[in-house]
C-alpha cells in the first residue's frame, strides 16, 4: 500500500515538475508575465519562511533565483531565441547547466562573462588545453562532435547543449537526435562562434540568452572598434590598388580558394587573394602559379599538421623564423615581390581562425597596408581580448608566439 502511495506521489511530482518547467516560476496568476509585485511577493514569502518563522508556502531557492533572473533580464516574460540555424526556442528558465561541444562558442560565452560554474560539460579539446581554459579543467568530457560520449553528456543533466550551426551538420544532427532520445528535456542551440559574417549577431543573441546584455554590448563595441577601423580604411581602397596576397596553410602549397574562411579574411583585411577564383575551397596549387602571379604579400599559417607549434602554450619564436626562411629559400621564389621585399609573414591559426579571427584580420590589415594602419596595434587588441574578455592572466610580451615578424 505504501509503495503504491509512494508511486502516486512520485508520479504527481513528476507531472507537477513537468508542468512547472513550462511555466514561469513565481508567476502566480499564470498569465506568462512575472510582474514586480509577483516577484516581491515571492521574495517576501521566501524571507518569511526562512528568517521570520513564517508558515507560508515559499518558492524554492532555485525558483526564486530563476524568477529574479527572468525579471531582470527577460522583462518577466519567456524568451524566444533564434539560433544560427534559424531554429526558435522558447525558454521559461535561465540556463544553469550548459554543455558545449563547440569550443568557439565557449570562448564567446567567456567573452560575455559567463560564470564557469554554469558550464557542466565541455569537449575534449577544451580539456586538452589547460593553458587557455584553466577554469574548465574539471568539467565533464563530452568527447568531440565526431566521437561524442553520450553517457557523460547524459549523466551531467545539462539543460542546454550547444553545437555548431554550419560545421559537420550531420554529426551535430546525430548528437541531437540521440541525446534527445535519452533526455527529452534538453534544449539544443546551434551557434558557430567563428564566422565573421555572423559573429556580432551571435554574440548579441547569446548575451540575451544568458542575461549578459550589458557585457555583450561592451564586447561588441570592442569588436566593432577593431573591425570597423579596418573596414573603414579598407573599403576606401579601390579594387585595382589592393595588395595581392598568397595565403598558404600549414600544408605546403595548400592555399585558400573561393568561399573559404581564409579567403573571406583576406578580403576583410583589404587584400586580393591570388587564388580567390579557384572553385576548390582549399586547393593545392602549383608553385609556378604562385611565381607567375607574383603576390605582394605572402601569409603562411602554422599551428597544425606538420607545423603544429606556436600559440598559447609555446614561447619559442625560432620555429616561426625557420618557416619564414624556408619559404624564402624555395627555388625561384626569391623572384616573388613578397620575398624580395621581405613581406613574408607567419601567423598562428589560433588568431586567424576561430573566435579570435578579428585579431588575425587586424594583423593582416596592418601587414597589407602598414602606412594606412600606423595606429592599429593588433597585439594590444589581442592583450585586451585576453585580459578583459577572456579573463586570462596572460602576458603576450612574455608568452606565446602568434606572428612573425612581430
Amino acid at each position, binding site marked *: 500500500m505504501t509503495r503504491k502511495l509512494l508511486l502516486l506521489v512520485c508520479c504527481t511530482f513528476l507531472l507537477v515538475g513537468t508542468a512547472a518547467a513550462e511555466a514561469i516560476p513565481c508567476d502566480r496568476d499564470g498569465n506568462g508575465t512575472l510582474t*514586480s*509585485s509577483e*516577484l*516581491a*511577493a515571492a*521574495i*517576501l514569502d*521566501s*524571507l*518569511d519562511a526562512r*528568517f*521570520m*518563522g*513564517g508558515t507560508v508556502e515559499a518558492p524554492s531557492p532555485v525558483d*526564486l*533565483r530563476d*524568477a*529574479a*533572473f527572468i*525579471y*531582470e533580464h527577460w522583462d518577466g516574460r519567456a524568451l524566444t531565441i533564434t539560433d544560427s540555424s534559424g531554429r526558435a526556442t522558447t525558454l521559461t528558465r535561465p540556463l*544553469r*547547466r550548459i554543455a558545449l561541444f563547440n569550443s568557439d562558442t565557449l570562448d564567446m560565452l567567456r567573452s560575455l*562573462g559567463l560564470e*564557469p*560554474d*554554469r558550464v*557542466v*560539460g565541455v569537449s*575534449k579539446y577544451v*580539456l*586538452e588545453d589547460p*593553458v*587557455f581554459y*584553466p*577554469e574548465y*579543467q*574539471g*568539467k*565533464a*568530457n563530452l568527447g568531440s562532435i565526431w566521437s561524442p560520449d553520450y553517457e*557523460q553528456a547524459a*549523466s*551531467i543533466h545539462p539543460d542546454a547543449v550547444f553545437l555548431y550551426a554550419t560545421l559537420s551538420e550531420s554529426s551535430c544532427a546525430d548528437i541531437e537526435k540521440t541525446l534527445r532520445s535519452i533526455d527529452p528535456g534538453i534544449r539544443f542551440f546551434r551557434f558557430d562562434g567563428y564566422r565573421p559574417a555572423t559573429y556580432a549577431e551571435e554574440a548579441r543573441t547569446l548575451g540575451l540568452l544568458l542575461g549578459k546584455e550589458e557585457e555583450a554590448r561592451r564586447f561588441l563595441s570592442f569588436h566593432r572598434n577593431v573591425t570597423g577601423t579596418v573596414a573603414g580604411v579598407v573599403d576606401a581602397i579601390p579594387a585595382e590598388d589592393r595588395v595581392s596576397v598568397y595565403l598558404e596553410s600549414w600544408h605546403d602549397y595548400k592555399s585558400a580558394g573561393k568561399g573559404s574562411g581564409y579567403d573571406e579574411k583576406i578580403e576583410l583585411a583589404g587584400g586580393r587573394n591570388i587564388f580567390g577564383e579557384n572553385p576548390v575551397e582549399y586547393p593545392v596549387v602549383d608553385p609556378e602559379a604562385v611565381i607567375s602571379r607574383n603576390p605582394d604579400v605572402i601569409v603562411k599559417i602554422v599551428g597544425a599538421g606538420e607545423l603544429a607549434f606556436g600559440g598559447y602554450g609555446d*614561447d619559442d619564436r625560432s620555429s616561426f623564423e625557420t618557416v619564414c626562411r624556408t619559404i624564402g629559400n624555395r627555388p625561384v621564389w626569391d623572384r616573388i615581390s613578397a620575398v624580395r621585399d621581405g613581406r613574408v609573414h607567419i601567423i598562428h591559426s589560433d588568431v586567424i581562425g576561430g573566435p579570435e579571427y578579428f585579431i588575425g584580420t587586424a594583423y593582416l590589415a596592418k601587414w597589407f597596408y602598414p602606412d594606412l594602419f600606423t595606429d592599429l596595434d593588433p597585439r594590444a587588441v589581442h592583450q585586451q581580448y585576453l*585580459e578583459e574578455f577572456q*579573463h*586570462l*592572466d*596572460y602576458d603576450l610580451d612574455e*608568452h606565446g608566439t602568434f606572428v612573425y615578424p612581430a
Partner: protein
Amino acid sequence: MIFVLAAPAAAGSVARVIVPLPEGSGNGLEVTLTVTGIPVGGIVETIPDGYTWVGCDHPDDRTRVSGQNVAFAVIDEEAIRYRVQGPPEAGEAFTGTWEDLQTGESGVVGSDGPRNSGQAAQATVPSTPGFGYAAALAALAMICARRCGR
C-alpha cells in the same frame, strides 16, 4: 607559466545609517538602508527589543513585518527608509542580513562585502582523465591500414 583566472569584480553590499528623528515626531529613529550592486534581492532586518515598528516609505507589497523582523523585497532600488519608535541610543543593536537573488551572494547588513559568495550550481561532475595520444595514433594507423589495404 601561471595563468590565473582573474575573477570578475562586482559584489553587493548593504549599508545602514541610523538617524534620530527630530523631537517633534516623538521618540524614534530613522534607519536608512543603502543598497549597492544588488538589482534583485531581499533584506531581513531585526529590530532590537524596546523598539516598535512605525512605518516606512517602501511599497506595501514589498514589505512584510512579523514580530521584531521586517523583510524587504529589493527590486532595482538603492535606498530603503524605515522608522521605529524607541530610545535614541542603542543604534548598534540593529542586525540584518541581505541576499542577492541573482548571484546567490549573501551578507550582513553594515559590513563591506558578501560573507557568502553564493553557492555554485549543482555541478557534481566526475573528472575524466584525458585519453592521450594513444587513441589518436591508433586511429591514424587504422586510416593508413584501411587506405593501403583497400
